[in-house]
């Protein structure tokens, strides 16, 4: 199945228990400086990977202050990730 590019408004593109690919989950979140976004996905382990930009991440008592270093597009350097257990 193809889902054409669209503004998903920070809501999951492939949500939990999707009828075709229930074993996966996918969201694209777009933020500007200072904005905060909370994510917790029941029944799914997740990994947060900035395509571009830099984040502070707080999970389970840990704080990580510079996740992501790419600017402009995904060709700009190596990715970073942060895992998160089911919500």
């Amino acid at each position, binding site marked *: 199945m193809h889902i054409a590019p669209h503004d998903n408004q920070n809501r999951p593109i492939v949500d939990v228990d999707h009828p075709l690919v229930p*074993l*996966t989950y996918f969201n694209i979140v777009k933020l500007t*400086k200072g904005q*905060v976004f*909370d994510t917790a996905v029941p029944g799914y382990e997740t990994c947060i*990977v900035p395509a571009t*930009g830099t984040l502070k991440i707080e999970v389970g008592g840990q704080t990580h202050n510079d996740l992501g270093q790419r600017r402009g597009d995904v060709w700009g350097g190596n*990715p970073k990730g942060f895992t998160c*257990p089911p919500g």
Partner: protein
Amino acid sequence: MKARMTCLSDQAEIFIAGAKYDAVLEPFAVRADEIDRVQYGSDDTKTHRKIKHILGTKYHDRVGRLLVSELFTVGTGGWSGFPSHKHDTDRLPEETRHDETYNFRFKPNHGSGLQMLQRVDNQPGDAYHIMDGSTVLIDKGYHPCCVLPGYQMYYFTILGGQSQRSLKQYFQPTHADQVKTIPGILDMVAKFK
């Protein structure tokens, strides 16, 4: 468990990748210098690619079912996901069931490509015209993709295993001889194990 992200840069676009899994493992960061890279294929065979594994095989004891990677074509134009393979049925040792989701980007970003989805060997399948930001859901079947000449292609790859994390792809019998003629395919397979 909840994760809170705060944007520190002027803007950020963030992928959140998930796999169905219940147990609570300790969260951890993957740094840029811990990324596992593999380059394979060739310009001659029009299959030259590289993969950056964010959550690859070295994390089997810290992650339940989720595999996350980024694929980049090397050079412009060309094919990926070839030799064609599938992973829609748990029938070890030949194959595992892993659902898969891709998100595509092109450089320059007005480029585009095609995603094939062939459910039955030797019968015509479907093809989708994919553009910058397209999401493709691979539930079943063989799934090579390609990009127009002059453009580089990227796709963010999420795999979720049904009964194990380690991926076993089944190569389509019709094209399986090319597993040996396209350079580095077996190295690529090993990095998803």
